[in-house]
Each structure stands twice: as C-alpha cells, then as structure tokens.
C-alpha cells in the first residue's frame, strides 16, 4: 500500500487516471441501455473521480468487483487504496468506516447481503446513527452503507431480507432506496454527497433491469445541481386519480404492473415511489391520497411494525377526512423469508394488490 493517496481527478495531472476517466466518460455519453448495476457502478466511479476522500470497501469488492459486480473495475481504476477488500467482519467494516469518516474520508461500504449487515447492528445503531447528535454536530459522519436487499432472485436463507425497518426506526440514519436506473445513479451520488450517514438499500432484483439513460448527462446534471434532489422527495411513478399505490424499491415495479392491470378494468391508479424513507415525503404522498381518497401501501418486508405500517399510520393521521376507505397494506407475511420455491407466495403480487384495491369500499360510492 502506498503511503500517500493520489487523487485521480484530472486536475491532479495523473495521466493514466485521466485517461481512464476520459474513457469512462466517453463510454457513458449518450442515451444507452443501462442496467441498474451499471448506474450504481458509474455513480461510485464518478464520485471517486471527483473527490479523493471517497473510498469503497467491504467483502469481495476489490478484484472481484463485488458479488453483484457493483464495484467492478474500481480497484483497477482507482487503486487498491481507494477500493479494497477487508477481512470478513461486518462490524469491523462499519466500525472502520466510522473512524475513517471521523478523519476526513467519505467511505462507501458494501454489506454483501441484507442479513449479513446484522453483525454490524451495534455499530450502526449506536454510532453511525448517533455520532453527529452526540457531539452536537462536531463530528458528522458522511458515510454510505450500501445494502443489497429484498427477494425476487430465488436466493437462499439470509440473502433476501427486507431490513429497511430496522434502519428507518433508528433516528440519525437516512434511508434511501431507488427503484429506477436513473434514481440508482442520482440517489447514490446524493447519498455520497450527504453530510449525514445514509443506509442505501439496493433492491437486488433490479440489478439487471435496464433503462435508456444518458449517464454522462446525469453526471453533469448532478454535479451542476441541475436536477432536483431526491432526498426527502417521493416520485410519482404513474399519475392516476382513483386510488394511490404507495411503494418503494422492489415493489414499485409490482405496483406499476398492478396499475396497468387495474387500468384495463377501468381503474386509474396513481403509483408513488417513496424513494427516500428517511426523510419522508409527507407532502407528495398526502397530496395524492387527498386527491384519490384511497390508498394501498406495498412493501416486501413482513408487515408487522414495518415501513408500511408507518406509511399507513401517517397517511390516516394526515388524510383522515379524505379517506373513503381504510389505508390497506400488501406486504410480505409475518414469516421468515421462505426458501426459493415458496417466495412467489410470500411476495406482494399484482393479484394481491388488485384484491386490496378491490376491497377499498368502492360500493359506497355508488
């Protein structure tokens, strides 16, 4: 390991890094078919290029590029001081990241799978979330914990947990989860820029989804602040009038599919992509529910004491008089995530969402 860290930003005059950066930039120019994984990878690379204090580390993120290849090529491009493997210990990874953030770095760390972040829970709940507050802001912790989460990939036990509730319930953590390729890029850049710690939940079933996106333009838009921030901002994924489906991460596509199906039956559903669980966008969501008068919240995690519960609670508190029916939930069951052959029964499905929508007491309108 070399004793000094060289920023690889072009300004620094590092020729080979500059070449790599240019090559990367030109490869990203123009509208192309881009995977969610590639968008995340590019966001990391762009952030690392811009700021030499951005580091990436975790298990298998170096030469291998991560088990999902999200960090592919970063070690090669930025060196093993900037993107590297650690010994196999999640509490160690988070704890070391805390110290690095205390000392001027902006670490981005990867937990290999959702359930494998649990060994780090004390470091996350007792330090990542609290250091800024404990020191009255004198010791902010700008770090990002990337967590591939949720199911839909036929994964075995411990590889499919939707663990966002644990983090969302812990004051001091921001919790983001993108559902589109474009948001994957923009929200990860925003997370890295954030002065506060962000738990960045990546729906692993989306890694291989594609969209037509111009990553170069997104970079420019982000770096010139030409795009509105996603932090604390839900997105209207599909405008509608009759009822609101509120979803995030892996459930947004299911909600959209349900809305398509409902449209065939003559119901025009609005779909909201929550995106930023903490901070939460009451405004957009309540505006939608006040307009439609009906809402279903969709999430993969077991429903009990979940983010979905919170959304239901908030919506009924704030929109009570606009509601024509109770706010319903379609969530994972209150069971451990099942083995691959059973996951289709566990996960919120289009049919289950349509059933919930059907039960929103439409008869009373008539």
């Amino acid at each position, binding site marked *: 390991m070399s004793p000094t860290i060289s920023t690889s930003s072009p300004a620094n005059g590092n020729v080979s890094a500059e070449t790599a950066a240019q090559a990367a930039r030109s490869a990203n120019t123009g509208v192309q078919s881009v995977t969610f994984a590639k968008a995340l990878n590019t966001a990391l690379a762009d952030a690392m290029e811009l700021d030499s204090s951005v580091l990436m580390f975790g298990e*298998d993120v170096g030469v*291998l590029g991560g088990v999902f290849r999200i960090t592919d090529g970063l070690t090669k491009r930025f060196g093993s001081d900037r993107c590297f493997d650690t*010994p196999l210990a999640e509490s160690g990874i988070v704890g070391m990241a805390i110290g690095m953030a205390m000392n001027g770095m902006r670490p981005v760390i990867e937990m290999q799978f959702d359930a494998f972040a649990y060994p780090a829970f004390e470091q996350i709940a007792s330090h990542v979330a609290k250091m800024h507050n404990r020191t009255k802001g004198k010791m902010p912790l700008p770090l990002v914990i990337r967590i591939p989460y949720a199911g839909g990939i036929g994964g075995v036990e*411990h*590889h499919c947990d939707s663990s966002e509730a644990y983090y969302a319930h812990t004051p001091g953590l921001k919790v983001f989860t993108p559902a589109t390729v474009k948001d994957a890029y923009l929200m990860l850049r925003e997370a890295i820029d954030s002065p506060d710690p962000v738990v960045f939940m990546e729906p692993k079933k989306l890694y291989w989804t594609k969209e037509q996106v111009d990553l170069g333009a997104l970079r420019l838009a982000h770096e010139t602040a030409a795009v509105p921030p996603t932090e604390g901002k839900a997105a209207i994924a599909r405008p509608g009038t009759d009822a609101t489906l509120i979803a995030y991460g892996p459930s947004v596509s299911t909600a959209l599919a349900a809305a398509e199906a409902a449209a065939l039956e003559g119901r025009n559903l609005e779909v909201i992509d929550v995106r930023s669980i903490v901070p939460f966008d009451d405004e957009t969501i309540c505006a939608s529910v006040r307009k439609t008068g009906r809402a279903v919240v969709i999430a993969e995690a077991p429903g009990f004491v979940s983010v979905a519960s919170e959304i239901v609670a908030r919506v009924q508190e704030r929109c009570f008089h606009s509601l024509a029916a109770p706010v319903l939930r379609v969530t994972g069951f209150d069971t451990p995530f099942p083995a691959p052959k*059973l996951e289709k029964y566990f996960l919120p499905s289009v049919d289950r969402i349509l059933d919930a929508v059907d039960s929103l007491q439409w008869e009373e309108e008539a």
Partner: protein
Amino acid sequence: MTNNESREAIEQVSSKFGITPEDYMLPARTEIHMLDVNGKLHPAGEQGAEPGHEYPLPSPAALMAAYEQLVIGRRVNDQNSALVRQGRMAVYPSSHGQEACQVAAALCLGENDWMFPTYRDSVAVMAKGVAPMEVMTSFRGDWHSGYDPNQYKVSVQATPLTTQLLHAVGVAHAAKLRGEDTVVLAMCGDGATSEGDFHEALNFAAVFNLPVIFFVQNNQYAISVPLSQQSVAPSLAHKAVGYGMAGERVDGNDLVALLSVLGRAVRLARDGNGPLLVEAHTYRMQAHTNADDATRYREDAEVQAWIAKDPLTRMRSYLADAGLLTEESEARITASSEAVAKTLRDGMNSEETPDPAELFAYVFSTPTTQLTEQAHLLADELAREEDTK
C-alpha cells in the same frame, strides 16, 4: 470455579506431556503431515510432531473406512456440481479438494457427539449419517433445512458465517451440565475466523472448559479474498493461545494426518482438557459456488499446483502400497459411491414441491391469530386461482 478448572486442565495436560502450558497451546512449529504428495508415509521424525504434539498412525480399519467416505465424498461433490450445471439443483458450494477434511470431521466423532457444519460441509454432514435427500432439501430450494438436527446430532448447515460456533459451545455446555461426555466439533472457514463470533465462541469454550473442537478448513479463500488479506498471524492455529487453549495445524489434504490430529483432539476434549483449535490447510478447487467466477481473482496455475496434492490420490496410493486397498475393495467402494450418486440424481427428479401453507406452520409452535389470518388470505387466493383454471 470454571476458570480454575480450565487452568488446571491445561496445566495437567501440558505437564503430562512434559512441556510448558504455552508450548502445549502454541501449535507445533510446522503443520502435522503424514503422507507426502505421492502417498508415501513421511518418516516419523518429519511428520511435524514434537514433544506434546504427538500423533499416532490410525488403525488400518479406520483408514479404510475413511477412504470409503473419501471416495463417496468426491462423488457427491461432483454429482451435485453436475446437477447444478444441469439446472436441477439451485446452488451447491462444493468441497471438492477438501474431502479429507470433510471425512475426518465426521469420522472422529462418536455417535452422541455433535457436529456444526457450514454450507460447504455437505459431505461431512452425509458422512455423519444424514440421509442425502434430507441434505438436498435446502439446495433444491424446498426449505431452509431438511433434516432433524437432534436425530443425527448434526446442526443445520450454517449460512451466517461463524454464528454456529457459539451454538456448538452451547450444546457442549448443556451436555456438560448434565454430566454427559459429548464432544462437539464446530466447523468454519478461514474467512469466518475474522468474525467477532469466532472470538466469542473460542473464549466461551475456554472459560467454561468445554469439549469443543474448533475445526477451521483454511482453503485459502473467502470467496475472492485470499488468506493473506484475512489474517497476518503466523497461522490461524496461533489464535488458540489467546484463549488459553491448544492449537494445531495439519495438512488438510492428508486424510491420515487429519484422522490422527482430530482423533487426538476429540480424546483430549472428552477427557476434560477443554477445547482445541485445529486448522487444516487445504484448497477450494472450484469456485465459491456455481454463482462465482474464480478466474476473476486467481490464476489457473495456482489451482493446478493443488491438483498434485489431491487428498484422494494420495490416500489411494498409500492404501494400495500398504496392501490395504485391493481391487475388490476398490470396486466395492466405487459401487457404494455410485449408489449415493444415484440417490442424489433420483431425488432431484422427484417432483415434490413444498406446500405454501407451510409458510405459516412453523414460525411458532402454534400459529398466532395474525399468522392464521395471513394463511387464510393465501389459501383463499390459491383457491380462487384454482377456480379460474
């Protein structure tokens, strides 16, 4: 007091061996190895043993029984990898190359002794007697675990790394409190030694002076991360002294040495001398799982070099040279390995699929009202689906 018991045990055993407690706890200067790469027995003075770290040759019968399991283990690994390639099994972390460790881990234990395996230790699990198709339940994706741990004294194959070592400690502790002489063998990989639970498990076992063998298969990699980025200790076995227990390292591709080292460890533990840490040096010949691409992080030359150390060929040469392995016995062993392979293939063909209602059946001993409601929701959906068919 617990602690005195531990201290005294270490002092007694080391004085029995005529060495200091520290020398007893630190591993012998080199790993223990008995067979060379050609299957020839190393001369006694070159087996790595030293005062207090002495290892007798296992009996011919024990060696032959182990060889049979070795052949079966290799067959199981290759059969399962084939089933995965054919898309008939969801995932299989192969222990190809590590079968000597697998077999020794199972065979060193008595009937009432427990084993705590990982995802990679299916061969050890079968060698301890678990029915092959019950092992396959999880790799087929039917349910998380398919056998009854109590029936076989084999815990579930652990996925969250290193967590199982603590369960092993608890099983040993419970047995000890009841005055039973159960020994527990807990397995993990080189990467897993970096987790905090490794530290806590070894310390608990030592402080409570429990008969637990911590058996680390150091196969040089944790997915893509080589041992050198996992630890810079002289060896993983050197960690033992930090807990006040004995550590030893052994050639993990040498079934003879493994049987001897683990066999002695089990005897010492059963006699009340407390836990031991055994590190076996071996190699993961295939990718981490079928989902992994090992060419991204290691050279083929490295893999090739380990072929020369294959545990199976070494053991076969040794047994043949020793006149223990005959053509008939070899044929019989091949036949029994083929029979296991057939069981696996046949099992994969059976079309049994899990019942969705079981989602709710085992969360608690009795489903709660909430779970019963959710079960009805699903049953109702499925019934309506049936109707519309």
